[in-house]
């Protein structure tokens, strides 16, 4: 399981953006330091994104420990929180994203996946 550190999220987002190009899916994962839950969430998210929106996604990881003021932007109180900025409307999924089915429903991917 890859660790999430100060640089990794940045790298990862860059990496993802490179892969995605003009991202159809804009996702934002709020974490608070390197907790087990955060690490699990990021791993789950990456796996799921690769499976369901390959090349069309952009993941931004925001560590509230570093940027606490950003918690206000998306009304984040639970950690981890995944915010789907695009496509609209905004959806929020809280938790470590371990329940894949519910994440897909939350991202409104269930139907897409089913197509």
């Amino acid at each position, binding site marked *: 399981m890859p660790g999430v550190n100060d640089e990794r999220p940045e790298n990862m987002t860059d990496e993802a953006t490179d892969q995605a190009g003009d991202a159809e899916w804009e996702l934002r994962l*709020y974490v*608070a330091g390197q*907790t087990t*839950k955060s690490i*699990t*969430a990021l791993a789950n998210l990456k796996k799921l994104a690769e499976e369901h929106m390959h090349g069309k996604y952009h993941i931004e990881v925001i560590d*509230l*420990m570093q940027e*606490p*003021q950003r*918690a*206000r932007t998306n*009304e*984040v*109180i*639970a*950690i*981890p*929180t995944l915010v789907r900025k695009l496509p609209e*409307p*905004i*959806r*929020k*999924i*809280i*938790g*470590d*994203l*371990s*329940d894949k089915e*519910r*994440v897909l*429903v*939350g991202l409104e991917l269930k139907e897409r996946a089913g197509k």
Partner: protein
Amino acid sequence: MPDFSSEAKMNLPAVVKCPTGIAGFDEITYGGLPCGRPTLVAGNAGAGKTLFAMEFLVRGATQFGENGVFVSFEESPDELAKNVASLGFDLHTLEEENKLVIEHIRIERSEIEETGEYDLEGLFIRLEFAIDSVGARRIALDTLESLFGGLPNEGILRAELRRLFRWLKSKGVTAVITAERGAEGTLTRHGLEEYVSDCVIVLDNRIVEQVATRRLRVVKYRGSVHGTNEYPFLIGENGFNVLPITSIGLDHDASTERISTGVPDLDEMLGGKGYYRGSSVLISGTAGTGKSSLAVAFAKAACERGEKVLYLAFEEAPRQILRNMRSIDIDLAPCLEKNLLKISAYRPTTYGLETHLAVIHKLVKELGPQVVIIDPITNFLAIGTNQEIKSMFTRLVDFLKGDGITSLFTSLTSGGGYEEATEVGISSVIDTWILLRDVEIGGERNRALHILKSRGMPHSNQVREFILSNEGIRLVDAYLGTAGVLTGSARLAQETRERATVLEREQEMESRRNALERRRQMKQAQIAAIEAEFAADEDEYNRMTAREGIRLKAVQTEREAMGRSRKSEEEKS
């Protein structure tokens, strides 16, 4: 009742208290909320929870140099600012001055999907960021329970709330957490009292017989004594106003100063000096016996001494009082012009009993009067039971006495009898009790006054006639006769009779004097007659004596002549 003051002192080191600045609240909690600890404020919708929390922060920032964070889970910062602007709180300025942060946390249940493990670290981070941004010492969470609506996993939420309160304590911030009142007697809908156990306050807005009364109660205050009663409170233009009116102590000062009743004759009856300053006076009587007139006379006298008077009229409008009192030569207009007299007239049914107390309390605090008059207290019967009124009244009297205010109450007793028990049974808190009553004699009703009691001063035991005329109030010396006190025409008649009796006696004496004189003259005449008689007798006697002398002389002469003749015969023989 335990001695609160000494216990409070004993507990002082245990719990450091944080003054709220909310009028009255710090008094009932002996200092405020527990410092650095969370306090739960529970109440129904509209009970004033948000306001309490907000005032705690605003006063903290403006009066105690403690900045605050207001975390709103419901209203937006703009809404909040608007809502409290009417209470004189300027949130925007406080925010600009970095004294207050309003953190709006909005949770939209429909936007949120829950998958797997999570915690509320985001909330903690936001709180911490807000607290640190202004160096806050106070925080309000309004209403934390909204989280239960936004987050489906109650297990996680409860664990996180427990952690939140621990965390707040470790941050050393004094927190106010508001919560909705739960159904069936539970304090809060989601059992927050389980986590916040240091101090719990319940706000209530109860409606009894269509009259709403706001009340506040300190349910729990760990490590501290506190007033346990329900205290009425007002939300007015200056925010919260809790009334610490209780009958906790009887330690008010007793002034020895005496003040005029406004009626010289009544002063005379009260040891020549009038009421004690700071005492409570009750004037009770049946309808139309002149209770208000005595009350107004007292008010007028106080104003003339330059004192402030608060006159609470529950029966008449101010203008009506002015007009009516002019008819007995009491002109209140100058008192009003000089702002010494404030007449506050409203129907008792306007508010609940407790709210009345709150309103009176507030008026007294604002005006700072030396004299408070309530005319009449019995009108409260319309909105409360005797017991409630008695309790309210006791608290009111204690509060007024505590402030050294002389209070005068009028009480309407039901007609048809001589009532020494007031309707509301309040005699024990009354220092001077004046009873007015009707006396019906000879086809007219007249007023009589007597002093039922007057603590700590010699007072007249007489029943006097009480006369209201266009020359003012007079108490006429009572006629004490076989029929008791006589008033009005009966008194006049009696006085006439009395005068006639005196006259009669005088005449009798005169005639007796004359008779004596006559008898003296008669006796003297008799004496003169006897003397004259005697003189006549004496004359007679003298004449007789003289005649006898002459006769004796004649006899002597005759005898001598005889002797001479005999001798010659002897000589012959």
